[in-house]
């Protein structure tokens, strides 16, 4: 990570022209090297009466890391964030910040900042006052407060807005004020709860870039909660995927995509999602195949070995949309159900004889298909093999 030597009001001229997004004054942000702390949950369980929101969760964001918590709504990711912040208390387990156990530390003393989905700006205070608010609580002297606010405001292009009230700001501006209020405190970690979900699509892409930019230029730990797998894949250094309060996988975006720990992760990450097909292992034509509705899928040697070792009859295979292609000699018969043109590529949904939909990804130059048209497809890419009972990944085989 390239962090500028912080705590200086001089402008680092070598980076001044680097980006129009988060501008030159970032170098002057009051974030010292080494301020970032690791954040860890160890064996955390959180129950509300009979409902268990989080079950035995262990994960750690390393100091300076951008870690994304990803999962569908209600999976416990926001609860995990609130547990770190101290807004909730775990039923059991340990929360650590910078290696120190903080279970018994009040939220205000944990020294973490949170950016809320609603931004939670104080409506009666001006932008400047909002940014200053946490400093007042910590009795920072007025002159220092003014300087910090000015520096942070400049770095986030808010200096023209300091006297406005939140109601007079656009969504993107509010978002930046919320960010400024978090940054000005020099916290050990930033907790972000779906901070971009209230923005329109275009702004979201821009803010995504700004956040990543911010993170690469200053030394901060970010714990970022989202249900949007695109955000997770594009922003996170590592992704923790949760489902029903249980951690499914914690790894880099590439690893999560290439080796999803189980069928849930495989189906959640990637758009269109991975096609999960259930079938029987059959030996035909001197090879081992998986018989699926509409045809069969071939298995590469490592997968054959895995199936034979476990003596599997039932088999679950996963194929990314790019691992399937149209082929007149393909092994699977299907009918075109839906064609989505997404700029540079098209996503085609095909219906298998049993009724299941599978997605394939094709270049936009490929001829457009008619709905209802009968086609044949072939597995031309990576095949993932999952345990039919647990859904866990057994092996990934290349064609």
């Amino acid at each position, binding site marked *: 990570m390239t962090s500028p030597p912080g705590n200086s009001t001089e402008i680092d001229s070598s980076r001044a022209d680097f980006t129009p997004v988060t501008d030159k004054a970032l170098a002057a942000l009051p974030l010292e090297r080494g301020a970032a702390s690791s954040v860890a949950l*160890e064996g955390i369980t959180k129950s509300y009466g009979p409902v268990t929101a989080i079950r035995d969760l262990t994960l750690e964001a390393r100091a300076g890391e951008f870690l994304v918590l990803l999962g569908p709504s209600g999976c416990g990711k926001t609860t995990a964030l609130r547990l770190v912040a101290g807004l909730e*208390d775990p039923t059991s387990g340990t929360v650590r910040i910078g290696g120190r156990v903080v*279970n018994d530390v009040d939220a205000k003393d944990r020294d973490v900042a949170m950016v809320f989905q609603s931004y939670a700006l104080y409506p009666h205070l001006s932008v400047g006052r909002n940014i200053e608010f946490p400093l007042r609580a910590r009795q920072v002297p007025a002159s220092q407060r003014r300087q910090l606010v000015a520096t942070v405001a400049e770095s986030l292009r808010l200096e023209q807005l300091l006297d406005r009230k939140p109601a007079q700001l656009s969504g993107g501006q509010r978002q930046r004020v919320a960010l400024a209020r978090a940054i000005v405190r020099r916290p050990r970690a930033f907790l972000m709860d779906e901070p971009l979900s209230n923005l329109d699509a275009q702004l979201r892409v821009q803010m995504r870039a700004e956040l990543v930019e911010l993170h690469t230029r200053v030394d901060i730990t970010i714990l970022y909660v989202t249900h949007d797998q695109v955000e997770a894949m594009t922003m996170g250094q590592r992704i923790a995927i949760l489902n029903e309060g249980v951690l499914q996988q914690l790894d880099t975006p590439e690893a999560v995509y290439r080796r999803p720990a189980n069928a849930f992760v495989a189906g959640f990450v990637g758009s269109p999602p991975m096609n999960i097909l259930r079938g029987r292992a059959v030996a035909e034509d001197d090879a081992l195949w998986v018989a699926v509705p509409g045809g069969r899928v071939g298995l590469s040697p490592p997968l054959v070995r895995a199936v034979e070792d476990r003596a599997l009859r039932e088999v679950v295979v996963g194929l990314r949309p790019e691992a399937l292609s149209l082929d007149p000699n393909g092994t699977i018969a299907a009918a075109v159900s839906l064609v989505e043109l997404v700029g540079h590529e098209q996503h085609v949904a095909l219906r298998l004889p049993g009724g299941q939909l599978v997605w394939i990804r094709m270049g936009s130059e490929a001829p457009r298909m008619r709905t209802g048209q009968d086609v044949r497809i072939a597995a031309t890419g990576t095949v993932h093999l999952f345990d039919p009972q647990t859904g866990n990944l057994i092996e990934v085989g290349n064609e």
Partner: protein
Amino acid sequence: MGARHRARGAHARQRPQSRPLRKAGAAYLFVLPALVAFGVFVFYPLVKTAYLGFFTSPPAPNLPSHYVGLTQYRAVLSSSDFLDSLWRTVQFVLYTVPAGIVLGIGLAMLANQRLAGIRIFRTIYSSTVATSAAVAAVIFFTLLNPQVGLLSYWLGRKGGSGVLQSSSLALPAVSVVTIWQNIGFTFILMSAALQSVPDDLLEAARVDGASSWLRFRSVTIPLLSPMIFFTTIVGVIGGFQSFGQIDILTQGGPNNHTLLLIYDLYQQAFKYDNTGYAAVLSVALFGILLLLTFMQFWFFQRRVFYAR
């Protein structure tokens, strides 16, 4: 490693109790002042009053009270004294509430016109909201005085017996004073309600050819009806609690003709030391007001519901 892990687990298990407990402690601290006040000055005396109703007061001070159970409740509540003062209170409410509301609506309609200087009239009509029962009573006490009172003079009763000394006119007179004192309050409420009647509804009715009376009857009144209901209940409750004007104007006289329930209660308790009797009256008053408050609360909640 294993031992360390276990130790940490134990640690984690005992900790979460302490923070929530501390938080709950803060919460109780926040509600405590109000709760103590309610306990000492609302709930305890309420129960105690009901309890006092089980004892008859001794004929002379310092003699023991007698426990008589529900007998006293039965006796007092069926006594003609009680029924008379209850009936007078009902009369008082019937004199004051409907007239007050009609006047309030009338003034609100008058002051809701777009005319030059209408603000002055609004201010005048709402002015009596600043007068307490005592202020109103003292003003009228003098104005109705048979020797020097201007109203007595104009009513042609100068020198003779005063209005407040007349057994047939005393209660109506007290009612008029009460209506006057409440008119500002009713006017303000009705004006607020009237201003929330959307203009386009009235205009639509006008375009439809409805006469002004029909517009008033079929658009304005229905839209005012929640506020009318509200004001009625508040007025009835206020009527049962009217004390100051009685105390200053008539002290329940002449000949008990303005002896309302609440004034009877006050005299029994603090003039005649008839604690048991007064306690029963208190409970009766509580029961009546409870019923009215329930009606009002039910209405208020519904209104809050719809407003949100």
